[in-house]
């Protein structure tokens, strides 16, 4: 078990996005979700008739609500518009039985706790109650085994939301300002004398070597 986590950490050396989830399954799902995707994206295929492969209708709605609560619409669109739920479903489709089961258990925990606190499922509660529940889940101060389940699930759904959102068309283009350009004339690098950048090179200072056969 430890070695698997070590492997994840080894692979993320150099990335400051090391997952901080607290269990192996959450680590795995986070890893499934998080990788170093960094280019821009076009619009997701607009499949109006999309249906989830793993999530049931209620679970899908819950994932939409959770992801939107984590990355909401502001001046830019949020996780719901970015269709993060579809990404979550794709990750789950590729996950193993154990990971899927743990994810479903986490979703069920959210509704159970929401019922206990507010008398309604998560999707049926108003924004302030959703925020209150997520605050408990994200506090990192789980006192009981039950709280631990919620805390681990939060890390997993948060990691998946981050990856799903910032690698979507909306996330890349609108939120990160990356229009997806892939042809650049040059890489300018540092142009700030205050950082110690050298004066711009003289044009043609160093000619390319002659080509050979």
């Amino acid at each position: 078990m430890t070695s698997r986590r070590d492997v994840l950490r080894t692979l993320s050396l150099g990335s400051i996005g090391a997952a901080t989830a607290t269990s192996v399954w959450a680590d795995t799902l986070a890893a499934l979700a998080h990788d170093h995707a960094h280019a821009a994206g076009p619009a997701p295929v607009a499949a109006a008739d999309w249906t989830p492969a793993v999530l049931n209708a209620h679970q899908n709605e819950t994932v939409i609500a959770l992801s939107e609560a984590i990355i909401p619409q502001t001046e830019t669109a949020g996780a719901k518009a970015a269709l993060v739920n579809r990404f979550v479903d794709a990750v789950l489709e590729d996950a193993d039985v154990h990971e899927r089961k743990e994810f479903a258990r986490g979703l069920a925990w959210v509704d159970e706790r929401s019922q206990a606190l507010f008398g309604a499922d998560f999707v049926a509660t108003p924004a302030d109650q959703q925020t209150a529940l997520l605050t408990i889940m994200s506090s990192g101060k789980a006192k009981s085994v039950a709280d631990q389940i919620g805390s681990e699930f939060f890390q997993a759904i948060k990691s998946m939301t981050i990856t799903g959102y910032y690698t979507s068309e909306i996330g890349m283009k609108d939120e990160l300002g990356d229009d997806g350009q892939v042809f650049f004339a040059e890489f300018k690098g540092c142009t700030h004398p205050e950082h110690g950048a050298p004066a711009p090179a003289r044009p043609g200072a160093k000619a390319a070597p002659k080509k050979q056969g």
Partner: protein
Amino acid sequence: MPEVFDAVIVGSGASGGWVAKELTQGGLRVAVLEAGRKLDPAVDYSEHKRPSEMPLRGRRYATRESQEEQKIQKLCYQCDEYTNHLFVKDTECPYTTPRDRPFVWIRGRHVGGKSVTWGRQSYRLSDYDLRAARRDGLGVDWPLDYAELAPWYDRVERFIGISGQAEGLPQLPDGQFLPPMALTCGEVMARKVLKEKFGRTLTIGRTAILTADLGGRPKCHYCGPCSRGCSTGSYYSSPSTSLPAAERTGRLTLIPNAVVSHIEVDDAGKCKSIAYVDRVSRAHREVFGKTVVLCASTLESTRIMLNSRSAKHPNGIANSSGVLGHYLMDHITGGGAGGVLPMLKGVPDDRARRPNGIYVPRFRNIADKHPDFLRGYGFQGGASLQTWTHGFEVPGFGESFKKKVHEERPWAMRFSGFGECLPEYENFCELDKEKVDAWGIPVLHISMAHGENSRKMVADMAATGEEMLRAMGAEDVKARASISNPGLAIHEVGTARMGDDPKASVVNRWQQAHDVSNLFVMDGAVYPSSGCQNPTVTIMALASRASAHLVDAMKRGDLA
């Protein structure tokens, strides 16, 4: 009568494709055997694909299917949803290790081999490396010195194109460079601090990526993810550069899907042909050559030699010394440090994506003598603006979280060490006595572990990495000293080392087997010591030199 080629080359990667170019241009008729298929850049390369086009957004662990078939390959940082088809299926070509001596063997079987996915960093060795044994008494020297190798580096660099900055350092000789890529803000600052406070050099990575058009290949357009293939052929890969040059001579026959089993010899014990299995039909075939050149990659070349047993060569061909398979090395990794540069807060990054990092050349055991370990290491890494991955460490959720991720984009800098691995007889490979691969060919049993020298070196990487970041004023500095499993640097070298003494080496100074005059090894297997520099450009320079010798010897009739 089947055709008898002047030379049969096994492998089409960085070295095989290059040797094919050198030999065909030297007038030889050459066959190149490649275990895998031919790639189609339009389908197999995906450097311009965006994450939202990928169901799993390009994640590193690829798909469930590939996780089961590529349990080892997925440990490679380059093997992800975009590229998993550019790595072997471990289930098809397994190998074994002792339980307590794991080895990570990363491979690509297709025309071009690992030259399609490689890291492209290209550094010359110096006499600090080639003559290391006479300086500190450990291991053996190379049978040639830098002055002898330098013109061959020139030849390789001029043809494939290496961009870089001349620095005038004796331990890292300059080359025939295309214009250097630019440093980022954090790297410019680091260069100044490292020079002033430590007397160390930080230079832009010397990389096999064109910064000017060369030989009909256009310069880099800075899209970023080279490891997914390059549709414009702007970095050196065998299929973009060497193999087309070989094809233009009209003397190249490329045979893909040829999984080589062993070398057949004549009554005198000399190479006669290569026996292979068709990857798809599983049919057994043979191709005849006056000479055989192994460029199958360090461990595969040795596997073929070990599996070439005959009355003349009972322990494998070219193994009268008993050294074949021994002195396996791979660079030491797992030590370094990362941190955040607070003084750059708010400074925007270049929108172009530079597919290159920085290099801090070796500074240990050059002028002084380190008390804890022999040899040295260089740092690779860089400084760049994180756009969103820092979000995993931003606490909370909701509007304030989103705002923080947007506004608090950190400049992160990291140094990752690549260190010299000492040659040890006990680090070796042999044929597994039972297991065979999907084509019925015996697999390797690989037994390797990093020793005390390496562990101390990794500790020093972490300490010096942290020290440099702190000197720059970095915050949130995290040092790491956790030695990686052997193989994971993917710089495996040795097992058929070159030398003047036939009792202690497998090939001579011309990379020609001491025992078999028409057998050559022209890949990383011939390394007597590893240096700490990424090996490909050296493998190619050596191969260029050996190829010239082979052409001359054949013309003289010395190989008959």
